[in-house]
């Protein structure tokens, strides 16, 4: 390669480097683009770890912020959405309106979600008297689908045997009967 062609090539490489750096910065600042998913996961794990500690108002607030940031970066992240439901329930001692909305939205977005099915079916049944009928139908459909499919990863039958809420236990017992017929 001659000296004449070396200089433009190096200049082009430098320009490309600057452009790539700019795009990376844009992705970081805007919360969008290929890197945003990974950063959403960081907030998710932070929220998860916070909630693994004994609950206090400060921890719940911090976890709420982290979960909201995760959801803002990754709107289809049902685990983050449901974590907000969970935080609201722990903070208020009952399912809140916002918690119900998040639970309902999680089903609207992904009606059959193997990554979170076991948790949300159990969560819904453990707050069964507070869950509206349309969401109950979604919970029923998901429980029956994974129960019939026999997914070992989800373990729906075990979930249905673990419900504590009395109203939820009635529904779970009836569904178990339907699954075993």
């Amino acid at each position, binding site marked *: 390669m001659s000296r004449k062609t070396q200089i433009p090539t190096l200049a082009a490489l430098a320009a490309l480097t600057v452009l790539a750096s700019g795009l990376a910065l844009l992705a970081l600042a805007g919360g969008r683009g290929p890197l945003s998913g990974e950063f959403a*996961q960081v907030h998710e794990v932070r929220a998860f770890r916070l*909630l693994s500690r004994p609950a206090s108002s400060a921890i719940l607030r911090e976890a709420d912020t982290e979960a909201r940031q995760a959801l803002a970066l990754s709107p289809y992240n049902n685990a983050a959405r449901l974590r907000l439901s969970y935080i609201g329930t722990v903070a208020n001692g009952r399912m809140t309106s916002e918690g119900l909305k998040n639970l309902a939205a999680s089903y609207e977005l992904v009606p059959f979600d193997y990554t979170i099915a076991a948790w949300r079916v159990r969560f819904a049944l453990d707050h069964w008297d507070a869950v*509206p009928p349309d969401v109950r139908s979604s919970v029923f459909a998901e429980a029956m689908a994974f129960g019939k499919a026999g997914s070992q*990863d989800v373990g729906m039958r075990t979930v249905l045997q673990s419900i504590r809420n009395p109203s939820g236990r*009635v529904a779970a*017992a009836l569904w178990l009967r339907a699954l075993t017929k």
Partner: protein
Amino acid sequence: MNRKSTSISRVVKALAASAAIASLTVVGGSAIAQSAVQADPAAAQALASTIASAVQAAVTANQGASAATIQAAVEAAIAGAVAGKDPIVANAALASAVSTLSAQGVTNIPAVAAAVQSQQTVVLAAAVTAAVQTAVAANQGASAATVEAAVEAAVSSTITTSGASPTVTQTALTTATTSLASQGLTSVPGVTTAVAAVTTVVQAQATGTGTTVTATNTTQPTTTETASTTNTTPPPVAPPTVPTYVG
């Protein structure tokens, strides 16, 4: 090479997940179809708002009154709101209203909770009766086994919609059974067996002899990276696993 095998692994995982979701959608769809008795959502929602407003008005109007007065006022409010309505719609509407009132903390008032339970018993009994009537009518001429399956699905679905406690459900089933007998429906082959089967399940829950509770309290959801079989305790952060579907 390593990167290539990782990519292939991801593609395989994505395909497996897509196939699983597609099959689950079909199974889930059929599960919904089997739930048989569905209330008109618009009518149920409108009635739910009426019930919730009536209960709130009754509570507000009786602030400072005795528990018995509040209970009577709330019972009258619910009874008035559901009077003359289709029992299946009333059942769904009351369940929805209870959900709204619960989120507002209104059902934490003992007198309100007692009134709601009292009305749930009446509404659920009527809904179960109506559900059985519908299932029997839809399966006229069918075998006893078909009728039994249809009736059991209808009653289970009605109870699931209600979300009532085991005791309330048990009482409602007893009332419904009496009502069905008076209408001659218990003589239809399959009906008595189906209702008895559901009653047995509910009774076991009401008397605490049902399924053994094996898990701890519900904890937070795992992260998308930590989904696992049992998520009652926070598992360590690990790569997601591809589910194995059997059957």
